[in-house]
C-alpha cells in the first residue's frame, strides 16, 4: 500500500504550517507500511481542529462528540474485533472533557490506538488555556495566567494502565510515524501524545520553546515501569519516544469468538426456550 491510497481527497482547512499536516501524513504512512486494509480500519475522533483528521483518511471514520472518541472506538472494537481501531483528538478532548474515559480506557486496555494532538490550547474556540497549558498561561479565559498545574499525560497513562505509552515531536516525521506504527502494532491500549504547538494561538509555547526542550530517549528500557515514570516526570526537558510498553490482558479478548463481527450474527430464528426455563 502507498500513503496516497489512504487519501480521501478532502482538503483540510488547517492553518498554514499546522502540525496536523504532518500528522495526517504520518498516519497514512504508518497504515501503508503496515499494509492495513482501508476497509478494516476505523478512525474515530472528537471535536476540535485536529478531530477533523478522519475526513482526510480514506478508511471508515467517525467524528463523534467532544471528549468521546474513545467511547465510540470502544463500541466499534467490541462489536468487531477484526478491525484496526484508532482514535484521534486534541488535549482538551482527551485529558479535559474526556478525562474520565481516558483513565478508564487505560485501565481496561482494549486494543485501540489513541493519538492525542497536544498543543496545550483550545484552538478551535480560539485560544483558551487547556488541561496541558503550563501554569501561568495567559489566555482569554485566564487573563492573569492560569492557576492550574497541567496534566502530565505520560504519567497519567502509565499509572492508570495503558500498555503502550509514547510521546512524539511532530517535527520529527520519522519518529512520529514510528511511534504511531508501533502503537497500531501493539496489542492493547496505546497512547501517542504528539507535541504539536498551535502556531496561531500558542505563541509563548511555540516551536522554539519546544525545540529547546525536546530530546529523543536513549538507553531507556520501555519495559521498566519505574524508569518510564522517571522519564514522565521530567519537566525541564521533554523526552520523546517510547516510554513504556507491557503485555497485559486485553479488554475484549476474553469474549467468545462468536461468528466473527457482530454485524454478521444471525438474527433470524432466535429461540428463547432456554432463557425461559428459570422463570417457570
Amino acid at each position, binding site marked *: 500500500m502507498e500513503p496516497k491510497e489512504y487519501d480521501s481527497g478532502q482538503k483540510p482547512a488547517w492553518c498554514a504550517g499546522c502540525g496536523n499536516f504532518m500528522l495526517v501524513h504520518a498516519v497514512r504512512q504508518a497504515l501503508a507500511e503496515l499494509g492495513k486494509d482501508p476497509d478494516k480500519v476505523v478512525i474515530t475522533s472528537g471535536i476540535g481542529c485536529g478531530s477533523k483528521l478522519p475526513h482526510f483518511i480514506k478508511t471508515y471514520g467517525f467524528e463523534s462528540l467532544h471528549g468521546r472518541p474513545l467511547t465510540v472506538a470502544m463500541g466499534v472494537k467490541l462489536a468487531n474485533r477484526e478491525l484496526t481501531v484508532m482514535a484521534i483528538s486534541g488535549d482538551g478532548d482527551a485529558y479535559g472533557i474526556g478525562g*474520565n474515559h481516558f483513565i478508564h480506557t487505560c485501565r481496561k486496555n482494549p486494543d485501540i490506538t489513541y493519538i492525542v494532538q497536544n498543543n496545550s490550547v483550545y484552538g478551535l474556540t480560539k485560544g483558551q488555556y487547556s488541561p496541558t497549558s503550563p501554569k501561568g498561561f495567559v489566555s482569554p479565559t485566564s487573563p492573569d495566567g492560569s492557576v492550574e498545574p497541567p496534566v502530565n499525560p505520560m504519567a497519567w497513562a502509565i499509572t492508570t494502565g495503558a500498555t503502550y505509552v509514547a510521546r512524539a515531536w511532530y517535527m520529527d516525521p520519522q519518529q512520529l510515524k514510528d511511534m504511531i506504527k508501533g502503537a497500531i502494532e501493539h496489542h492493547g491500549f496505546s497512547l501517542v501524545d504528539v507535541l504539536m504547538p498551535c502556531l496561531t494561538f500558542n505563541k509563548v509555547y511555540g516551536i522554539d520553546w519546544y525545540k529547546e526542550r525536546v530530546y529523543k530517549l536513549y538507553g531507556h528500557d520501555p519495559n521498566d515501569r519505574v524508569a518510564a515514570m522517571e522519564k514522565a516526570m521530567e519537566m525541564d526537558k521533554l523526552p520523546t519516544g517510547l516510554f513504556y510498553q507491557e503485555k497485559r490482558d486485553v479488554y475484549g479478548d476474553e469474549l467468545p469468538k462468536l461468528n466473527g*463481527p457482530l454485524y454478521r450474527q444471525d438474527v433470524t430464528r432466535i429461540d428463547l426456550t432456554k432463557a425461559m426455563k428459570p422463570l417457570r
Partner: protein
Amino acid sequence: MDDKPITNDLCWKIGGPAGFGIASAGTVFATACMRAGLNAFVLSENPSLIRGGHNHVTVHVKERQVGSHLARTDVLVALDQQTMDNHVAKIVKGGGVIFDPDEVKTPEVHDVKLFNVPIKRLCQENGGLILRNTIAMGATAGLLDFEPRFLESVLKDNFAKKGDKVIDMNLNAFKAGYDYVKKEYPSGSGFVLSKRKPNDNVLVSGNAAVAFGAVSAGCTFMSAYPMTPATSVFETMASLAKDYGLVVRQAEDEIAAVNQAIGASFAGAISMTGTSGGGFCLMVEGLGLSMQSEMPVVIIESQRPGPATGMATRTAQGDLRFILHCSTDDSPRLVLTPGDMEECFSVTAKAFELTEKYQMPAVVMVDKFLSLSYATTPAFKGGDNKRYIMTDRDASKLKNYKRYDLTDCVSPRAVPGQKGGQHWASSYEHDEYGHESEDKTNKIRMSQKRFCKLDLAAKDVPQPKIHGHSKADMTIIGWGSTKGPIREAIALLEEKGVKVNHLHLNIISPFPEQAITKAIKDASKTIIVENNQSGQLAGIIKERTGLDVDYTLLKYDGRNFFPEEISGHIVKILER
C-alpha cells in the same frame, strides 16, 4: 367457618425490614401459584437501603391474568411492628393477619382473623432466624389450603445451589409453619388457593421482559451504567450473554454507555443501552449524535421520581416531555411506552425493528412500577428478524458511496469491515458523504431527511385501539405502566355495572394523532390517568390535536396507582 371460602382470588402481603427476604418471598409465592396453574402479579415496595427500613410485597392471585396489585389485603404476614401498623387497617372484612405475638403487638381490630404463629420459636427449632420468611410461607400455605408441593418445589429450586442441607432446613421450616396452623387453625383463613390446569406461563419482571424483547429482536450489544430502577435490564442481558452471543459491558458512566452503543451500532451491531432519568440526562448529547449520524440505538429509560436523584426505588411517569423533547435543535426520535410484561417484550422488540429500519434513536420508557414488578405471562418464544444493513455483497458493488444519500429519508447503510463501504459519520451537519457542511440548502435537506423518518415510521406502527365497549360512560386515556391498574379498575367498575373503555398508548412518537382525536370525539367523557404532576400527556394531546380531555387523575407521590383509586375516582365523577 360460616361462609363459603373465597377461592383463587387473593391479595397476600408480607412485610418486614430489609434483609428478611421480603422481596424473594413475593416471587417464591407467585412462582408456586404459577406452578399451580394460577396467575399472579407481584409488587414490591422498599426504601433505597440495603438493611432496615420497611419492605413489603403484595401478590395478587387470580385464575385469569392479573394486571396489577390491589389496595386491599386479604391475608397479611406482619414480620415486624411497622408492617402491622401500616397495613392492618387495609385488611378486608373477613381477612386475616399472620404474626408472632412475641414480636408484634396484637392489633385491636374487628372482623379480621388473628393467626398467632410462634415464628421466632419455630425458626430457632429449625435452624435460625433466617427462616422467618419460609416459616411464614408454610403458615400461609396451611391457612390457604394450598397444596404444599407447589411451594416446596420452588423452595427446592431456589436453594438448589446452596446444597441439600439448606434445602432440607427450608423444607422443614416450611412444614413447621404449615403443620402449626393446620393444627391450631384447622378451619383456615376463609381464602383458598386451588390448583388449575397447567399452563405455559413464566413469572417475569418488566425489566427482564424488556431484555428478552431485545434479545428476540437480534440485539447483540449493550453497554450501560447501573442505575435503579433500570439496572436489571442490564443484569438480565449480562446473564444471557453467553447463551445468546451478546457483548454486554459496564461503562464508566452513562456518557460512555450511550456512545459505546452508538460506536457498536456504527460497526453494525444491533445495539442498546439503558438507564433511569438521571443517567438519561448524561445521554442526551449521545441521543443527538444518534440522530445526526443516523445511527440506530435503543435506549431503555426506566423512570423514577425526580428531579436530580429524586427517589431511587419509587415510581413516576414524569419524564415524558423530557424524553420527547431533549436534545439540541429539532431532533426527532421514536418513543415507545409498553404497558405490561407482554408489551415490555413486544414493544421493545418493535423499537429495535424501527431504529434499525429508519436509522434514528428509539427510547423505550418504562418505570419502577413496571420494571420491578413481576407478573405471570405466556412464555416468550423468540424472534425472527431481518437486517437492514447492506450485505457484504451489496457493499462490494458500491461506487462513489454516499452514506447520507438524499434520495430517500433512509439511505443504504454499509458498516466498517465491508469492502467498498468506506464513509464518514459525523456529529456535525454533513453532506451526503458524511463530510462537514455548513451549506444552507444542504442543512435544510438534511433536517428534512431526519424528520421524514418519523412520518415513515408513523405509517409502520399500529394505531392504538379502544379497549372495551364502543359506547361507554367514560373513556380512560393512559400511557405506559398505567395499563395494568386501569384494566383492573375497569374490572372493578364492570362489577358495579359502570361502562368504561380505555385507550392505551404504547407508542408516543410518532404521535398517534388520529386515534386520539377519534377516541376523544367519540367519547361521552374522557379522563387521563398519569403518574405525574402536570398531566404531561394531556398537555401533549392539547398541543397536537387542540382537544382537551375532560378530567385528569394525577398522582405524583412516588407510588403507582391502585385500581381502586382509579375506579373510585371515576364513580365519583359519574355520580356528580
